[in-house]
Structures are given as C-alpha cells and as structure tokens.
C-alpha cells in the first residue's frame, strides 16, 4: 500500500465528517439566517471564506517549512518505494495531507460537539471583535 492510498482512506473519513459538520451547521444556523439581513449574511460568508483561506495558506506554508526542517535533521524517514516521489523541497507531497486533514477534521469535530444553537445575550464587547468571532463560530 502506498502513502497516497493510506491518505485516501483517512482523508475520506475526514471528508465525511466535514460534510456532516457543514450540514449540522446549516441546520442549526437556519433560525439565525432567517432573522439576519442579506447584507449580514453575505458579510458573514465573506468573513468565513477569507478566514478559512488565510488559515489554510498559513498552515500549508508552515507545513512546508517545518516538514523540511524535520526531515532535514533526520527526525523521520520514508520508504522511497511507497511515496509518489513528488516533493516540496525534501518533504513528500503526501505529508501535506496531515495539514489538510487537520484543517477540516478539527473544526468539524468542534462544530459537531456544539449543542443546538441557543440565542445568547450578546457578551460585553471585550478584546476587540472576539465576540463576533465567538458567536459566529460557535
């Protein structure tokens, strides 16, 4: 079995959880969406997309940098026969599956663990803008 074959199995599990989380968030957010204006909804969507894109970019770059360092100093080795041979520096491309999986799996588990959305009184606006983030992401 190749590295990509193993990744395919685990990424499939992550994808299923991701879809489940999206559906769950969609069902839970229905009431909130009904009471918000189209402008608010569009703003929220842009915020979600920009945030996710930003985090993805940063984590993939960090993976490229640190994976290269970790392989470079000899923390981990690979069987050349089981990897595709596509590298980012000296890091097998397959390693990036961990970062991609983390970006989908963890927020999905977080969403699935959250109870049904109960209307909360807006918290005191502490620490610049964190309340919007908390409410939007919980």
């Amino acid at each position, binding site marked *: 079995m190749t590295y990509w074959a*193993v990744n395919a199995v685990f990424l499939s599990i992550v994808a299923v959880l991701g879809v489940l989380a999206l559906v769950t968030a969609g069902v839970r957010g229905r009431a909130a969406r009904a009471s918000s204006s189209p402008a608010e909804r569009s703003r929220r969507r842009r915020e979600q997309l920009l945030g996710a894109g930003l985090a993805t970019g940063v984590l993939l770059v960090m993976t490229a940098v640190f994976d290269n360092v970790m392989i470079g100093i000899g*923390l981990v080795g690979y*069987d050349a026969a089981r990897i595709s041979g596509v590298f980012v520096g000296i890091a097998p491309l397959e390693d990036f599956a961990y970062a991609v999986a983390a970006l989908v799996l963890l927020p999905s588990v977080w969403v699935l663990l959250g109870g049904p959305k109960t209307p909360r009184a807006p918290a005191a606006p502490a620490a610049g803008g964190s309340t919007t983030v908390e409410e939007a992401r919980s």
Partner: protein
Amino acid sequence: MGFVYLAALLVSLFGMVMLDRRFRLFFWRDVPRAAVTLLVGVVFFLVWDVVGIDLGIFFRGETSFMTGVLVATELPLEEVFFLTLLCYLTMNLLAAARMAAAVVLDRRDASSTQAGRSVDGVAS
C-alpha cells in the same frame, strides 16, 4: 542533546496556550469542547501514523535530537506532542484568521464607504 526536539515542541505548545489565553481562541472559548476536539484530533492522527509505520511507509529517523522513548513500535514520544501541536495550532489559527478576516473586511467596508462619500462630494 536528546531533549532538543521535545523541548522545542513544549516551547511551541506553551506559545499556543499563551495565544489562546490572550485572544480566546480555543480552550478559552469552551474548555470541555476544546479538550474533546483536541483529543479526537490527536488520536485520529496517531492511528494514521501507526498505519503508516505498520505498512513501512515512514519510520523514526536515527537522530540525536530525540529522547529515544517510544510509545509504540517506531513511534517516538515526541510524535504525540507534535500531533498535539499540529491540532492546537490548527484551531488557534482558524480562530485567529477569522478575527483577522473580520478586521480586514471592516477596514475595506469603511474605506469603500469613505470613497463613496468623496465621490458624492465631487459630484455635488
């Protein structure tokens, strides 16, 4: 020298905790929910690692940077901390990026409103 990698991971994890506390990113939003999320993530990636090791895809490197303590065949103690760091970083990063996105969009909206006003000013 065997503690270099473990120490680096612990320092990084400490940084994650400090950032989490300062900006309320993960555990400081909901402790039990964050704890379960982190645990699920770490266990999931450990299983992935063990499968990869069993199939001989990757293996522990011979290096003096690690303690040599193994939690399973070819699975160094350090890997548990690395995966914890990966999961903690991911959740901190997602929350922080969302905050940054809010700031960027606020600024953009504010500047476009201003631009709109000055255009009105010229027109009138």
